[in-house]
């Protein structure tokens, strides 16, 4: 073996250490900033950012900021590839039956997958917007799917529920929706 490649090789030998040091630094940072299990959106109390999403299904219109005017509504961030989203479907249906207007934002999804998901789990949504690059999801401070927001008649984010809606959460969310109406 000639001299030069041997030297390159030596530098490579320290690469694992450099990568490991980066991981340690990252994890140490994580330790100093312990996450709480619920990360409230910084956007609660702020108006929705302006967006206009194309329709995610053939029988429901798309979703834009203007559609929230008039009365308080629920904004559900979901995806067909997200398993807890299927688990919360009955609760969304219950909320819809109780009179809530639910708008959906489908994150990083395909139209065909979405159609299958809605056929399997039911479609409680009045409108579904397709957020292919998570732009809206990130803009409203959602850190994962599923999440559900209460948006008041002025388009202001009033409440955020993180994770799937369990049966015991339904009344709480309905309460927040009524609160937002006052």
């Amino acid at each position: 073996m000639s001299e030069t490649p041997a030297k390159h090789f030596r530098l490579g030998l320290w690469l694992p250490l450099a990568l490991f040091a980066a991981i340690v630094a990252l994890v140490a940072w994580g330790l100093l900033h312990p996450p709480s299990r619920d990360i409230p959106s910084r956007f609660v109390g702020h108006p929705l950012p302006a967006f206009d999403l194309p329709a995610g299904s053939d029988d429901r219109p798309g979703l834009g900021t203007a559609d929230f005017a008039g009365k308080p509504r629920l904004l559900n961030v979901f995806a067909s590839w997200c398993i807890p989203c299927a688990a919360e479907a009955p609760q969304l249906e219950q909320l819809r039956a109780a009179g809530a207007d639910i708008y959906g934002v489908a994150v990083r999804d395909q139209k065909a997958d979405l159609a299958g998901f809605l056929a399997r789990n039911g479609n409680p949504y009045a409108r579904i917007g397709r957020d292919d690059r998570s732009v809206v999801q990130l803009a409203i401070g959602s850190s994962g799917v599923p999440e559900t927001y209460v948006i008041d008649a002025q388009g202001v984010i009033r409440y955020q529920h993180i994770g799937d809606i369990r049966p015991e959460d339904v009344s709480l969310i309905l309460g927040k929706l009524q609160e937002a109406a006052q």
Partner: protein
Amino acid sequence: MIAEFGLGALWFAAALALLQLIVGALALKPQGEGFAALVRPAAVVQGALALVSFLALIAVFVETDLSVKLVALNSHSAKPLLYKVAGAWGNHEGSMLLWVTVMGLAGGFVALVERRLPERTMRATLAGQAFVSLGFYAFLLFASNPFTRLSPVPVEGNGLNPLLQDPGLAFHPPTLYLGYVGLSIAFSFAIGALITREVGPAFARAMRPWVLGAWIFLTLGITAGSYWAYYELGWGGWWFWDPVENASLMPWLAATALLHSASVLAARNALRAWTVMLGVIAFSMSMIGTFLVRSGILTSVHAFAVDPKRGTFILALLAIYIGGALVLFGIRAATVTEGERFSVSSRESSLVFNNVMLTGTLAIVLLGTLYPLLTEAFGEKVSVGPPYFNPMTALFVMPMLVVLAIGPLLRWRRDRVGRVSRLLLVPAALAAVGLAAGVALAPGRVLPILGLGLAPALAVASLLPLRGRNLRRTRLPVWGMVVAHFGIAVSLFGMASDSAFTVEKLVAVPVGEATEVGPWQVRLAAIEPVAGPNWTALEADLQVAYKGGEPTSLHPQARTFWAPVQNTAESALLTRWNGQLYAVLGEEAQDGRWQLRLWWKPFVPMIWFGGALIALGGLLALLGRVASDLRRYFARGKIADRRERQGR
């Protein structure tokens, strides 16, 4: 008393680890030769004491001694015996004790039986093993004492998380830990070899059975864990790319790469530095994964034992051990001389390709697992899920599977792909047919199509190395390779079939009415209350019939545990040769209907069946290696005897 006894044994074990480290290090110098005789016995006694301590913990759990804090927090007198025993490791302190116990036992076992390596390398290895153990002993004794007493003694314990009360899960953590911690042996071997610069075929042969053993347990643990998540969480999914799952997948990927590179080193004396590095990486991944999960830095649906306060302690340990090993690697690997060369088309090259792809997959999984933390550090909170992991890992795994079909047919050192191309015509034709069928059956879905196309071709190709051999005289490790590779094809088929053909249905049906899912007719015959030792449940009686055939009963439950209070959905499964029917009972709706979640999942059991085959392949290879080592050992003994006799 038992608790104090266990704690005492733990202290003594830690002291012996310290002794083992000191005498092992001293014996590396010529003037310390006198200490050499102590190294192996110290390792054996240390392992035995750790085991005693662990058995003491099981004993306090079995008698439900509520004056021990750990028992009060995690057990309950009304729990079935199996879960009392399993409760010992179903929590942070107990699982850490299990960790050091397995480490101690593995070290003791190596000290007892491993005689092939140069004695100096063995001392360095055992000193390294003791050094790593010491950190975990310190962690247990100073930050996670499992034997702490509680005053006043509570009347009743808190109970064990109901999700964990499952016979399969009772043995899941020990299986995985045998795998994780078994890799510590590879880590210590790598350190020992780096210290003494003895990296060669003998090192690879000595390390290989240990890696194989650990890898078998990891494979079984991951397979069983996936099946557990599948039927216990009631979501019908079998892999969620959850941090806990990734934590077990990463060491497996590294260990798989290590197994393959060790066979190149053993057979051809090539890939020396690379193999040593994988030895370090594999156990490092075990530690990093466990740490990420335990520290609570990453949130997970599986987070059953989380405590951020302890994170700092483990992080310091990781920095010392992994950082130290990598520094040693950086200094010493350059002085490890280059191994044998080989041509581009050769068995070695295909194994190098396998290693690069496995390492690439590992990097993808590690990046995806850490990504939420990384973006959070820059002020954004994001989560990554299957849309990232599936295509990115497939990018590395799919080409690897193609090479997997070819590589085992190639000769060592130099070969022509042209020589084996005729053999590969059958798998290639199968792949073409499979891909076409995939396109027809699951149009537009790239990964399932690739999976359905590759799996049958891979299954046939994996059997090709047996062609032209006398099957009775074929060595066990070759059988092992064939079975494991065949298992990968089986598992791949199950995964592709599950994602391409699963039929899912969520319905609300009144008692007495029927619904359909795929080829099944499902009738809700009755809902009845049932009770177990520490739970009550509503149980559905489902009469299910496949394509109008004889109906069979299925009994999914909605269970309520009362210590601690928690509701779980107990799914019911019906397995046929061509798939599984999966039923979950949900809530009662207002109008007397019951929610049922039903899935028909064609060929899904093949995922876990394939996993079991992969482990079986490992077992065959291990048996073959151990048998030939034993033969060599006895043969050497006979030669030595004869020499002795002739000498007299």
